[in-house]
């Protein structure tokens, strides 16, 4: 006797949607992490993975950090290490703090709206 087992694999549509949501929230996640402390690139990737269980396309993180820096949301500095290979630390800038507060408000409104819609 055979059983047909349907594996609950996400459809292509859901996968696409997930990747869009991830892309859209990555900046928000990064700014929130940097609110608490400074991180260097590799550490930041690990933090994102730990907090969100999200696999970040690692290479794309650096151009993103560069854009946030150009927009004045974060700052960066090189810090010498005993290994002789310095780390580039990123920190939240004042402009970033202001933007983050606005983003936070938007996020809460959205969260409430979605809760409201899904409960119905």
């Amino acid at each position: 006797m055979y059983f047909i087992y349907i594996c609950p694999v996400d459809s292509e549509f859901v996968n696409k949607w997930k990747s869009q949501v991830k892309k859209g929230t990555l900046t928000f996640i990064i700014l929130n992490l940097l609110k608490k402390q400074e991180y260097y690139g590799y550490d930041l990737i690990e933090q994102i993975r730990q907090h969100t269980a999200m696999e970040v396309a690692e290479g794309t993180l650096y151009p993103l950090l560069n854009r946030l820096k150009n927009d004045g949301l974060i700052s960066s500095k090189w810090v010498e290490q005993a290994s002789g290979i310095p780390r580039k630390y990123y920190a939240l800038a004042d402009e970033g703090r202001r933007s983050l507060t606005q983003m936070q408000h938007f996020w809460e409104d959205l969260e409430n709206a979605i809760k409201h819609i899904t409960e119905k």
Partner: protein
Amino acid sequence: MKIPTFQQDATVKLYQHYINRVKRTVKTLPWRDRDDVLMEINSHIHEGMQKANETQSETEALQLILDKLGKPEVVFKPLVAERKLKQATITFNPLHVMKALALNISNGFIYLVFSLLYLLQLTFIFMVGAKLVYPDQVGLFFKNGNFHLLGIAAFDVRERQGLEEVLGNWFIPVMLVATVLSYLLTTLLLRLKRKK
């Protein structure tokens, strides 16, 4: 730049190959930006190797880090495109402008519009050339005191329509100034667009 220490030749080769690809991708950037990108990737590789799983061989560990970073040609393209645009609008160097537009054309329709605006400036240059070939027929023509035509008009047409050429010997200098001014204006617009 101090590079991570590797035990095996194969790992060194793998590292060098990847770093060379990064170098090639970012070679059009100013040296300060170039060094910044290279140092950051170098640091990423070093930190990754420190935290590598001990059951893996050194080469496997590096390969995994590089795979996760992705192809330099793809990953760093947006970074190069963005910095190139910044450089172009600060220096006003036509070569930088051309490269920046080529890199950014896939980032939106607006950059195609800018490319066309820059192409329009060739019109003024073309007019200078035409004036040298047909000095009597090319000019800026007014009719009853209002602008009518920038281009070529044969004698009989001019007489029939009552056109008057207004620039005379000033035609070529005015066209050159117009080229420079429209170039500066377009580049300033590009700068505004980038900052938005």
